[in-house]
């Protein structure tokens, strides 16, 4: 299963980015293959509108089934994520990626 994180950096020790649509990086961990990849999302800064749907679409293309983030997606993003079958977990905005993953594993994050 592919798990996506919104983060401010590219590795496990990076701080989580509490924002979804305008997150700086998307990190994807595949817990079956144990692979870890990062995707630069900083282009989104140039977009005045529709950051939420755009980032949601990226998650769909990356094949993520779970999203771990901070504040949670807005209305439009949530609609796309739902259609894409991505489950969202929120409240990890103040953690680093490693802590966020642990919290998710321990069922400490709220499902959106």
């Amino acid at each position: 299963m592919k798990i996506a994180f919104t983060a401010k950096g590219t590795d496990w020790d990076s701080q989580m980015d509490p924002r979804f649509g305008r997150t700086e990086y998307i990190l994807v961990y595949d817990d079956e293959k144990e692979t870890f990849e990062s995707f630069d999302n900083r282009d989104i800064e140039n977009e005045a509108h529709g950051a939420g749907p755009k980032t949601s679409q990226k998650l769909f293309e990356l094949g993520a089934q779970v999203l771990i983030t901070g504040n949670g997606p807005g209305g439009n993003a949530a609609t796309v994520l739902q259609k894409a079958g991505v489950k969202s977990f929120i409240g990890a905005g103040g953690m680093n990626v490693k802590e966020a993953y642990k919290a998710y594993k321990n069922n400490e994050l709220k499902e959106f």
Partner: protein
Amino acid sequence: MKIAIASGKGGTGKTTLSTNLSVLLSETERVVLTDLDVEEPNSGLFIKGDLKSEEIKYKMIPEWKEDTCTLCGECQKNCNFHAVIQLGPQIMVFPELCHSCFACSELCPTNSLPMQAQRMGTIKEYQYRQMAFVESCLDIGQEQAVPLIGQTNEYVNQKFDEDYIMIFDAPPGTSCPVIEATKDVDYVILVTEPTPFGLHDLKLAVETMKELKKDYGVVINRYGLGNDDVIDYCKEENVTVLAKIPNSRKVAEIYSKGKLIYNEIPEIKEQFLKLKEFILTRKKEFVQ
């Protein structure tokens, strides 16, 4: 001649100025007042006229036709606003993000995104004493003010000739709705208050008007409150102060009852008469 009443900061007195000035002008001139603050029009709280006509306004939004779509993805490439998103075998349209530019629809090779009319609001026209009053209001749940402001301007342009003094009560702020409400006017009156907040947002509004290359002047409302920083700023920047409306508890009392203030207090009337004179002089120059 078209005059917009704008502000930067909200709550400085755009509606108070628009309504009172319009009614005062209409004693001797042909006037149409238009409320362009379509997200929360409130000139109507003070101007209770007879309803003459009502029009429902629409914006155009694409609708996906699944049966003819080949999922080529052109639509989402062409949308600058991410209002059209392809998600595997389906196309999603977000009406709140759509700017009705028609790009996705016109450039679709199989015509699978025809534009459909979607209701966004109403324009009502009233007669109040000798004055016409146009009120534009977005429907609940609609997020975009700009298309309705644009259509309201078209409505006013069609219905009223150049001989009218057209007063536009603009939305607050300095973003797209304000640009749309002020871009075609001949003069902009910026209403502010002599407080740090008022000054901060006045600066933004002045910058915006400079960028739009507009002719503008400032009215200081609730004058006597706060400090002199607004006056000093206007002096430094060579911005004309058109009037100073004194701060007064009595004004607040009259206003809270939904009544007009210009005729009730001599010091206030004096300032409104000053504004009227300024506008009539401008109009003469404008006609020549």
